[in-house]
């Protein structure tokens, strides 16, 4: 999926990578929820919408790779959320312990950075930090950098999703 040779911000390759990953994740969702087409409750619909949305973000993060802080944060959040859900339901996966340690290390790093960088960030930047995934552990300068890349990728994401939907007049 990832193409380490190419720059992830190259729109052509990013777009194609994102499309590929997104479609794959959509198929996976469909496979996991075979009864999705039949059920029509509103709650179910919302749940599925959220799943598709998360799938879109995660597939975009995967297409970008781990070069960017925001993509790393998104992937970590997704994995963390999954782990939390597993714990909640009492399901124990083999990767849990590994992820837990990884998560702890990341959380510690994030908290420490947060404390260090809070003094430097402006008032407005706090809002932006909340918007951009992983923005809270960044100083203002890096935050702007990540925001620029994040905006580029969001634009690509919306374009691709719209074009797929239009193509099949969904």
């Amino acid at each position: 999926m990832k193409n380490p040779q190419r720059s992830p911000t190259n729109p052509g390759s990013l777009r194609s990578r994102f499309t590929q990953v997104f479609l794959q994740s959509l198929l996976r969702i469909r496979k996991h929820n075979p009864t999705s087409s039949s059920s029509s409750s509103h709650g179910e619909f919302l749940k599925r919408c959220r799943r598709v949305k998360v799938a879109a973000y995660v597939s975009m993060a995967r297409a970008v790779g781990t070069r960017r802080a925001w993509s790393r944060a998104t992937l970590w959040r997704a994995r963390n959320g999954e782990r939390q859900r597993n714990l909640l339901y009492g399901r124990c996966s083999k990767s849990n312990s590994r992820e837990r340690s990884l998560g702890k290390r990341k959380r510690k790093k994030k908290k420490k950075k947060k404390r260090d960088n809070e003094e430097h960030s402006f008032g407005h930047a706090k809002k932006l930090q909340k918007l951009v995934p992983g923005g809270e552990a960044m100083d203002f300068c890096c935050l702007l950098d990540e925001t620029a890349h994040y905006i580029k990728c969001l634009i690509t994401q919306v374009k691709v999703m719209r074009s797929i939907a239009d193509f099949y007049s969904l």
Partner: protein
Amino acid sequence: MDNEFFMPWQPLSSGMAIQPNDLNCASKQSPDCFFNPNWDSSSTDQGGHFESALSSMVSSPAAAGSYLSNESVLIRELIGKLGSIGNPGEASPSPHSLPLSGNATAAMPYIGGSNSTNTSCYNTPLNSPPDRAVKERFSSVAEFTADPGFAERAARFSCFGSRSFNGRTSQFSPNNGEPPYKSNPLMESGKFQRVLSSPSLKALGSQAVATVQQNVISRLSDRIELTNSNEESSVSEQIPGGENGLKASNEANSRKRKAAAKGKAKESAPSTPVANAMKVSESHDNSSPKRCKPNEDDGNGNDTAKGEDDAKGNNKKNDAKPPEPPKDYIHVRARRGQATDSHSLAERVRREKISERMKLLQDLVPGCNKVTGKALMLDEIINYVQSLQHQVEVMSQPFVNVASVLEFLLLCL
């Protein structure tokens, strides 16, 4: 006046016969090196060939003997050699212009006596304009370079040539690629900033002598600007093709050292995107000597008055040659009349970084051009990000009832 100078240079066409084979090979391999205004990363490979060829070429005259006494002879030899590089396709049209610019650059390493390897291929593209008027101008420049006082001046320039040179650079950031370049063909400072700030040139490395050579280019281009804007643009576009005397620290410093001359009002001249060629060139000509002098004073004053960091930074700028990506710390020079302690310098560096990023964001976010000020810009950016995220959410709804058509789509990809 112009025609007179052709006479002494005619015999120099024999210098063209001195064409080492590797040079020819290099020139054949990389013709695009010089004529490509967009210096993309692919050309660095070609530049590598070229650099090795040049170094071999340059080192051979170095072995010839003492330079100050036989300066003119060496110069003529090197002219011929260097000139052949810039004209892979057109050897004939400019036999006269070949010697002239090559003269200037080739002479530098020997006059300065600092380096043996030379990455002065950036002068050769100046040879390629086939226009006779340009050649005439080159001849006048060569006359100027051949005078004995030039050696001294060149040596002086090597010390703080980079400063004066970079002091004239404008605000173009390396990230904003082509548009600023193409819209300002008339601005010599813009051209040089373009050349200097091209990130791919870092890979080619540089020598301290490059600063002197840059000054020579600046003088050459001064002459060019005086007469013809078209030629100027063609020359300027070719300069990046040949320019590889760039340091990584220079690039970082150029952006900061542009501030060295920023205190002067002259900086406003380069910032006008479209200007009359004559006006701009005149103002540049007027300003360039002025800039050189205050920069000298600036340099001297700064050397004496500033703390160790900047003095060290100054020395590092002249001596160090880091061809690889920027180091951990960046050397910054305090602007004239500003605080020189390290805290304020660091603050300024940070502020410049932030303003640079904000400019990038301004390009990304539509409708941000009219907004000025960080707070309003940030508000706009936040709104835009929120709207994009909302759009994603909306777009995810149609995909809830996915059909098997997606498998077909995936197969197509």
